[in-house]
């Protein structure tokens, strides 16, 4: 795990960031950016556990989170207290392993270089405060500057910067998804839970041995991304999946070779803020099925699907 994939990503990211020309950040609240910075830096370095709810449309889930921090790493788990009774555990994750999405939120240095970074994609502002799970929070409004991503209302713990509540906002100020802690405790004593049926160990990408699941026959690429999105992996090859993040939103593109042509068309399913968009199409005469799964609007998925091509 010491050969963390992040070391590679970090270099990549540095180049990307450095190549972006400096610009002024219009109508951006520096205070809001510093809060996001704090959230990204601190959230890995806290010990806490709590019960939270996730509301998506008519569906309400109750979840238990726990996060344990030690000197060099942190481990965490999520337990679905309703529904499936599933548990997801993450083995100790090095604190110095910073993934692209987390790095994007750490705008402290970028700000000093008057490099707007994420502020080019979103308008951030501190809009108020309030209490969540008995903690004082600061409320940050995140408004997208284009139509390729959703907006958010984030409530961060005033003391620790931990994200205690978030609302995903679609067009027309419609709340697509609401997450919030109901109870939270900053301690290391994690309550035990009975009735766990399925336990999953969260995987961690490995730069040296990238897991290529469901490979496709040829190299392929996505030729259009909304501004500010970058890959979460360092190498792709013939992997059937590509994932991209802008720091807040994440979407994955899956490509499948088809052994026969199918009637071209597209289908869409939405659950809360998650879009699943599937398109059967031809790329240079070869039939493929493209699926985009992620927390982005459907027009983003469509555009991305349009831009997929074989490489070379």
């Amino acid at each position, binding site marked *: 795990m010491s050969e963390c994939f992040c070391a590679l990503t970090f270099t990549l990211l540095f180049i990307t960031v450095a190549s972006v020309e400096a610009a002024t950040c219009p109508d951006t609240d520096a205070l809001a950016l510093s809060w*996001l910075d704090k959230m990204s830096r601190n*959230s890995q370095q806290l010990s806490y556990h709590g019960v939270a709810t*996730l509301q998506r449309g008519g569906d309400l889930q109750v979840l238990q989170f726990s996060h344990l921090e030690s000197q060099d790493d942190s481990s*965490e*788990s*999520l337990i679905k207290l309703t529904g499936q009774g599933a548990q*997801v555990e*993450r083995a100790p994750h090095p604190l110095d392993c910073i993934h692209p*999405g987390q790095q994007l939120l750490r705008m402290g240095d970028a700000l000093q270089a008057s490099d707007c970074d994420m502020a080019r994609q979103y308008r951030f502002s501190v809009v108020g405060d309030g209490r969540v799970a008995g903690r004082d929070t600061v409320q940050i409004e995140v408004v997208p500057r284009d*139509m390729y991503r959703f907006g958010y209302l984030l409530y961060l713990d005033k003391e620790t910067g931990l*994200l205690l509540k*978030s609302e995903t906002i*679609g*067009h*027309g100020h419609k709340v697509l998804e609401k997450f919030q802690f109901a109870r939270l405790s900053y301690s290391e004593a994690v309550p035990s839970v009975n009735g766990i049926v*399925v336990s*999953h160990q*969260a995987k*961690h*990408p490995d730069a040296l041995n990238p897991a290529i699941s469901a490979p496709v026959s040829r190299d392929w690429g996505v030729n*259009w991304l909304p501004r500010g999105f970058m890959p*979460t*992996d360092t190498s792709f090859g013939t992997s059937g*999946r590509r*994932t991209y*993040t802008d*720091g807040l939103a*994440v979407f*994955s593109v*899956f490509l499948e070779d*088809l*052994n*026969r*042509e*199918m*009637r*071209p*068309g*597209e*289908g*869409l*399913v939405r*659950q809360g803020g*998650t879009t*699943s*968009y*599937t*398109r*059967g199409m*031809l790329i240079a005469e070869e039939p493929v*099925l493209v*699926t985009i*799964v*992620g*927390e982005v*609007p*459907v*027009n983003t998925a469509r*555009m991305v699907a*349009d831009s997929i091509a074989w490489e070379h």
Partner: protein
Amino acid sequence: MTDDMRESLSAVMDGEANELEMERVLKHAVTDEETRATWTRYHLARHSLNGGSLAHLDWDISEQVRSALLEEHTAGSAPVSTGFKQRVLRPMASFAVAASVAATIVIGGQQIAQVGNADRYDRNQAVAISPPPAGIVNIEGANPVQASYGMQSIPVLQPTTRTAYRDLAEQRLNKYSQQHAEQAALNSPQGLLSYARVPQIRE
């Protein structure tokens, strides 16, 4: 263009606009040069992505959409916008979730799989602003690709094909959401919450 207008336009592109929003956008697009230009720009972007010729794009989109809408209304067919709830509550097709595309085609997608018929959809029939999920995007090499974004003139899909593709999208969500969550958990501020969006966690 005002923020409200941008939002309505976004809704139209998302296929989520209600009739009021749709009317507003159309009205604006007729009178407001900027709104119209924005539409055209998106179409151009999409068009060039597909290597299409730009010569075909100099049309008045709002006019096209408007006439499509009118045809929809006068034909008395399905409403322009279907509510999210309606779509979610729509009874699922009866075929089971299959593990592969091939299986899906066999079990559920007779309609999808029927290729080879030269006239797989009638390009002359009335265009429609279709509520998602809908719309064939014209991807066949020789013909210029018409711009989409959920509001372009798209061939009307057979309802059965539409249903099959919707179910395919649902099936793929189940299949891929855990892989997506693996990545999202490490690259978004919500961390492990990403896994809560996975319908069925697998070991």
